[in-house]
């Protein structure tokens, strides 16, 4: 401990971010304490002359599975990000939501075309009553589901990760 303090850095923290950091002296040191979840510091590359590629150090599947989001601390340039490919399920979510909204509008239009005195309901057959109630029961859920779907689509769009080339 005393030796570390004499060297000018606090051993509890990464020496890269401390005053008096000297790569020749402190390049091999790591912080001693266990970092809090989600605040792990970027591993310090021991020798700047021969940096180890990240993709080679950690398998790609583990990177994707363990990373909570895009790693903004790693020295990644814009050129390493590829254009995000289209997500067919996100597109399907949008189309289904629009379809729900259109269905709700169609049912509303059909309801407006009905007999305003409700004769199809009160004097119709059992099938007429079923059709009347089916439209009535489906209208509000369709519109609600359309709104939920569009919100989900926007959320998925907002949190989509940047994909990195291997």
């Amino acid at each position: 401990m005393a030796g570390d303090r004499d060297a000018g850095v606090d051993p509890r923290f990464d020496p890269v971010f401390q005053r008096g950091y000297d790569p020749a002296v402190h390049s091999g040191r790591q912080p001693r304490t266990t970092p809090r979840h989600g605040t792990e510091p970027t591993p310090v590359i021991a020798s700047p002359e021969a940096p180890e590629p990240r993709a080679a150090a950690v398998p790609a599947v583990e990177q994707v599975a363990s990373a909570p989001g895009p790693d903004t601390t790693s020295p990644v340039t814009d050129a390493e990000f590829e254009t995000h490919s289209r997500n067919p399920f996100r597109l399907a979510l949008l189309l289904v939501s629009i379809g729900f909204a259109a269905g709700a509008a169609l049912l509303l239009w059909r309801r407006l075309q009905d007999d305003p005195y409700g004769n199809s309901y009160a004097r119709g057959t059992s099938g007429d009553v079923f059709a009347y109630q089916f439209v009535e029961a489906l209208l509000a859920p369709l519109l609600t589901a359309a709104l939920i779907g569009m919100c989900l689509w926007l959320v998925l769009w907002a949190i989509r990760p940047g994909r990195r080339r291997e």
Partner: protein
Amino acid sequence: MSERRAPLIGLVALAAATAVTAVVFLWISSDWQFQANTFYTENGGVQLAEEEYEAINRLSYGGYQLFLLSTPLFLGAFAAGLALLAVLAWRWDRRPIAAEPADAGQATAAS
């Protein structure tokens, strides 16, 4: 059944079960309400026993309650379908990326 596929199957089952239940509720509701409507139409202006009116009112009211229940059931079915699509989209965005042909070509050119 794999662990990753089980929740998706659960969502599909939930969507199907709620949709079928909603349609069944609607069918029973429309049948009861039709019976009540027919009774009211046929016995309009006729003095009936109070028990008869109570029975037919219960039928009509029960049908109305089933109709009300079918609305959240439909919403549950739609929500389960949307959740299924959202999960699939989420997994698609985070799937392991294999080296695509374009990437392989660029890597060869770079080397």
